[in-house]
C-alpha cells in the first residue's frame, strides 16, 4: 500500500503519457487561496433553496383539474431548471478560470451558525472540482425526472413537492463544507425518497421502501457518530471542513474508528457488497423517474462521501486500510456484474449493473492515486447520466409492453427503431465504448489503480467484460431476433421522451469526446485530496 502513487505531479505525468489527446489535465497542487470573496456569493444558497421555495409554492396550489395539475408541473420544471442554469454557469466559469491558476473552493459562503459546547458549526457552502460536476449531474437529472413524470396523474402535488425537497437535500449535500450541515442535507432526502417509493412504486413498494429507509437510517446514524467523534475527540473545536479536513492530526484510535464508521456509512449508500441488498429492491419497485434519481444521484452521495469525508477527513486510516477497500471493490464488481448477468427483469439488470459500476469508484478510493480519483469523479458523472438514461429507457419499454421481463420481450427493434437506437447507444456507453463518457472514466481508474493493485485491477477489468456480456446479450434478446406478434403496434419514441432522452445522449457524448474541458476542473479538486493523502497539507 505504501507504493501508492501519491504525488499529484507524478499522477499528472502518467495521465499525459497514457491517455489520448484531449485528456491532459493540468497537474499540480491547488493553491491555498480561495477566490470566494470576489463573487456575489449567494450562488450556492440560491441554487440549493430555490427548489424548496418552489416546493413551498406548490403546496398551496390546487390540483383538481387537469389545468391545475399542468400548472404544478410547470412550476416544478421552473424550480428545477434554475439550478441547472446556475450549475452550468458555475462550471463554465470554472473552466474558463482555469488558466489563472488553481483553486480549492469557489463560491464560498461562510456564516456562523451554531455554537454549542464550544464547538462551532458554520453555514459553510462551497464547491470544488469534485462537487461541481456532481452538482451539474444532479441538477440536470432532476429536470429529466420532472419531464419523465409529466404523464403522472396520481397525487401530482405531493409528488412534485417531495421531488423538489429531495433535490434541495442532494444539492445541499454536494455543497456543504460543514459536517453538521452536510449531515442535515444527507438526511433531508430520506423521508421524501421513502414516500416516493412507497406511494408511486410497484407491487412490492412497501417492502422496498422500508428496506431503503432502514439501510439509510443506519448509514446516517453511523455518519453522525463519526461526525461527533471527529468534532469532539479531534480537538479542533469545530464541525467545519476548514478545521477538520485540513491536516488535523487525529490519534490512531479515533482515526480508525472514524474511518470505519464513515466508510460503512457511505458503503451502504454506494452500495458495496454485502451492504447492497436495499438497492435492487428499491430500484425495481420505484417508478421510472424515481429510479433515475436513485441510481443517478443518490448513489453518488455515497461516492462523494467516500472522497470528501472518508479520504478527506481520515486520509491516514484510508491509506492503512486501502487493501480492504480494494478487496471490497473487487467483490462488488464481480458480484454486481455476475448478478446482472443472471437477471431476467430489465430494471434489476440495470440495478445490479450499477453495483458493478460503483465498484470502480471504490477501486479508485482504494488506489488513492490522482489519476484514479480523477477517474472516479468522472465515473460518477458518467454513470449518473448513463444509468439514468438506461432507467428511462426501461421505463419506455415498460410503458408500452407492461413487462420488464427479458425473456418475454423480443424483436422490439422493428417496432421502435428510434428508441432502439438510443438503447444501443446507452448499452454501449454503459459497457465503456471508447469516446463515450464511461470509457474515459474507467480507463483512468484502471490506469491509476494498476501500478499499486495489479491483481485487483485486472479482476475488476474482467468484470467489465461481464458487463459487456450482459448488456449485449440483453440488447440482443430484447430488441433483435424475430418480431413478436404481441408487440406489433408499439409506438416509437414520443416527442416528450425524445425531449429528455436526447439531452442525456448528448451529455454522455460530450463527456466522452471532450473530457479535456472538464478534467482540469476535476483535477483541481482531486489534487487537494491527493495532497492530503500524501500528507503535504
Amino acid at each position: 500500500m505504501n507504493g501508492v502513487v501519491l504525488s499529484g505531479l507524478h499522477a499528472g505525468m502518467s495521465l499525459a503519457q497514457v491517455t489520448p489527446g484531449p485528456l491532459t489535465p493540468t497537474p499540480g497542487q491547488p493553491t491555498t487561496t480561495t477566490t470566494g470573496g470576489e463573487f456575489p456569493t449567494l450562488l450556492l444558497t440560491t441554487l440549493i433553496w430555490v427548489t424548496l421555495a418552489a416546493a413551498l409554492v406548490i403546496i398551496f396550489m390546487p390540483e383538481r383539474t387537469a389545468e391545475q395539475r399542468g400548472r404544478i408541473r410547470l412550476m416544478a420544471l421552473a424550480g428545477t431548471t434554475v439550478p441547472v442554469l446556475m450549475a452550468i454557469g458555475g462550471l463554465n466559469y470554472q473552466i474558463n478560470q482555469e488558466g489563472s491558476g488553481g483553486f480549492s473552493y469557489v463560491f464560498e459562503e461562510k456564516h456562523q451558525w451554531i455554537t454549542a459546547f464550544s464547538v462551532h458549526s458554520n453555514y459553510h457552502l462551497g464547491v470544488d472540482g469534485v462537487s461541481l460536476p456532481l452538482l451539474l449531474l444532479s441538477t440536470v437529472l432532476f429536470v429529466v425526472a420532472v419531464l419523465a413524470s409529466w404523464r403522472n396523474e396520481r397525487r401530482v402535488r405531493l409528488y412534485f413537492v417531495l421531488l423538489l425537497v429531495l433535490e434541495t437535500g442532494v444539492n445541499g449535500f454536494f455543497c456543504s463544507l460543514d459536517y453538521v450541515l452536510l449531515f442535515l442535507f444527507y438526511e433531508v432526502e430520506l423521508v421524501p425518497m421513502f414516500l416516493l417509493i412507497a406511494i408511486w412504486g410497484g407491487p412490492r413498494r412497501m417492502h422496498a421502501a422500508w428496506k431503503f429507509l432502514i439501510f439509510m437510517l443506519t448509514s446516517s446514524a453511523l455518519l453522525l457518530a463519526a461526525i461527533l467523534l471527529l468534532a469532539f475527540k479531534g480537538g479542533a473545536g469545530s464541525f467545519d471542513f476548514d478545521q477538520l479536513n485540513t491536516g488535523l492530526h487525529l490519534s490512531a484510535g479515533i482515526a480508525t474508528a472514524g474511518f470505519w464508521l464513515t466508510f460503512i456509512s457511505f458503503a451502504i449508500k454506494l452500495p458495496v457488497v454485502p451492504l447492497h441488498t436495499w438497492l435492487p429492491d428499491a430500484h425495481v419497485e420505484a417508478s421510472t423517474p424515481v429510479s433515475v434519481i436513485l441510481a443517478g444521484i443518490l448513489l453518488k452521495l455515497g461516492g462523494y462521501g467516500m472522497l470528501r469525508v472518508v479520504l478527506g477527513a481520515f486520509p491516514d486510516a484510508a491509506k492503512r486500510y486501502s487493501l480492504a477497500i480494494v478487496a471490497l471493490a473487487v467483490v462488488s464488481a464481480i458480484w454486481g456484474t455476475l448478478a446482472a448477468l443472471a437477471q431476467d427483469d430489465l430494471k434489476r439488470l440495470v440495478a445490479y449493473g450499477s453495483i458493478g459500476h460503483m465498484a470502480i469508484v471504490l477501486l479508485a478510493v482504494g488506489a488513492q492515486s490522482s489519476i484514479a480519483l480523477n477517474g472516479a469523479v468522472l465515473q460518477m458523472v458518467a454513470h449518473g447520466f448513463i444509468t439514468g438514461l438506461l432507467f428511462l429507457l426501461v421505463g419506455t419499454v415498460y410503458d408500452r409492453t407492461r413487462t420488464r421481463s427479458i425473456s418475454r420481450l423480443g424483436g422490439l427493434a422493428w417496432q421502435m427503431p428510434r428508441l432502439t437506437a438510443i438503447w444501443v447507444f446507452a448499452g454501449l456507453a454503459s459497457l465503456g465504448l471508447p469516446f463515450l463518457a464511461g470509457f474515459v472514466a474507467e480507463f483512468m481508474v484502471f490506469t491509476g489503480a494498476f501500478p499499486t493493485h495489479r491483481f485487483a485491477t485486472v479482476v475488476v477489468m474482467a468484470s467489465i467484460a461481464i458487463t459487456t456480456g450482459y448488456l449485449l446479450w440483453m440488447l440482443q434478446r430484447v430488441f433483435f431476433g424475430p418480431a413478436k406478434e404481441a408487440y406489433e403496434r408499439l409506438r416509437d419514441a414520443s416527442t416528450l421522451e425524445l425531449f429528455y432522452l436526447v439531452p442525456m445522449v448528448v451529455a454522455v457524448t460530450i463527456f466522452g469526446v471532450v473530457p479535456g474541458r472538464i478534467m482540469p476542473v476535476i483535477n483541481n479538486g482531486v489534487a487537494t485530496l491527493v495532497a492530503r493523502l500524501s500528507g503535504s497539507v
Partner: protein
Amino acid sequence: MSHPSPFAAAVDLIPEGILLLGALVCGSLAVVHRRVPAPVYRGLSALTLVAAAGSSLVYLRGLPTSPSNPGYVAWSEGLVVDRYSIFFVPVLCAFTLMTVLASAPVAQRIRPHVGEYHALLLTATLGAVLLASAREMIAFYVALELLSISLYILVGISKTEPRSSEAAFKYLVYGAAASAVLLYGLALLYGLTGRTDLVGVAHGLGSSSAAAALALTLVIAGLTFKLGAVPLHQWVPDVYEGATAPVAGFIATLSKAAGFAILLRVVVTTFPVARSTWLAVIALAAALSMVLGNVVALAQSRMKRLLAYSSIGQAGFILVGVVAYPPDQQGVAAVLFYLFTYGIVVLGVFAAVAHVEGSGAGEEIDDYRGLSRRSPIAAAALAVGMVSLIGIPPTIGFFAKLFVFEAAVQAGYAWLVLLALAMTVVSAAYYLRVLRVMYVDAGDQDAAPLPWPPRVTLAAIAVGGLAALALGAAVQPLFALAGGAAGPLTVR
C-alpha cells in the same frame, strides 16, 4: 435576598399567584354556575397563562447573576427565583395553553366538568412551576403532589367511561407507590444531614457513603415516575390510553418537563459528592428507557399507546443529556432545549390526535388510513411531528438530539450515544409507520372527510407543526436562551 414579611414575600410569587387566582376563578365559577360555556373557561385559562408567563419575565430585571448567588430565595427559603425557574414559567404555561387549545374537540367528553377541567389544568401548572423553583425538600414534595393529584383527577375526568376511571386509578396507585419511594429517599437524606434544603443537604452529606447512595437512588427512582422513564414507567401506556388526548399530551410534556426540572436541580445541587453513583443510575435508566420505549412501541396498534411508548423512549433520550453533565452548564442547556422543543411538537401531535378522535375517526393506528385525504392539515402536522420526533433534519427534533448527543460525547458517554443512535433508527420504524398509514395506505375511498378542526385546536396543531419545521432556523438563539437558563445549575 429575602423579605421580612409574608406580604412582601408574595411579590416573589406573582406568576404563581396569577395561576392560583385563575384556578380559583375557574373552579368557583364551575361550582356557582353549571352552564358556563367552555369558551369562557378557555378564555379565562388562556388569559391566566399569558399573564403568568408575562409576569415571570419581570424578575429577569435586577436578578443577581453572580455565580455564588444566582437568584432570590423566597418563601422561608423554600423556593428560589433564578434564571432556571424563570425559564420554566413561560415554557410550562405555553404547554398548558396548547393543551387548553387542544381540548376543544373533546369538549363533549368533559362537558359536565369543563370548569373543573380548566381549573385543574391551572393547578397542575402551578404545581409544575413551583417544582421548578423548589430548593427545599418539603416544597419539592408539596409541589410534586399538587401536580400529581391534579393529574389524577384530569385523567379520570370522564367519569362515565370505565376506561378513564381505570386509568385514573392505575395512575393513582402507581403514583402513590412512587411517592413512597421518593419520600423514603428524602427521609433518609433528612436523617443523614438534619437539613431539608437541598444545598444544606449537600453540605451535610460530606463525603460519599452507602446511605447517601441509597437515598439518591431512591429519589431518582421515585422521580422516574414523573419522567415516564424506566423503572417506574408501567403506568404510561394505560394512562395515555384512558385519558383524553389533550390530557395525555399534557402529561407527556408538562409533567415530564417539571420532573426533569426538579431532577436536574436535585442531582446537581445535592449530590456533587456521589456523582459517579447518580451518573451510573441515570445512565442505566436512560439506556433502559430508550430500549424499552422504542422497541415496545413497534408492536403497538393504538395511536395513544404508540405515543405513550414513544414518550418513554423520548424520556430516555433526554436522560442521555442529564447524564452528560459536563463541568459547565451546557449539558443542562441541551436538556432544556430538548424539553422545550419536544413539548411544543408533541402537543401539536396530541392536538391532531384529539381532533381525529374527537371527530369519531377512531383510536387505532389503522383508523388513520387515508388521513392525508380526509384531513390534510392534521395529517401534515402529524407527519411533521413524527419526523421531528425521530430527529430527522431539518426539523427541530434533529437539533435537540444533536445537542444532547454532543453533550454526551463530550462527557465521555460515547456508548450511550451509540445506543441512542441505534434506538433512533428503531424509532423511525414506528414513527414512519404512522406516516405510511396516513399517506401511503389509501384506506376506505368513500370515508367522508373529517370536519375542519375547531379554530383554537387548529392553532395548536399549526403551532406544533410549524415549530417542528421552522424553529430550526432559530436554533442558535434558542440554545443561547437555554444556556442562560442553565446558568444557575453550574457546578462550581
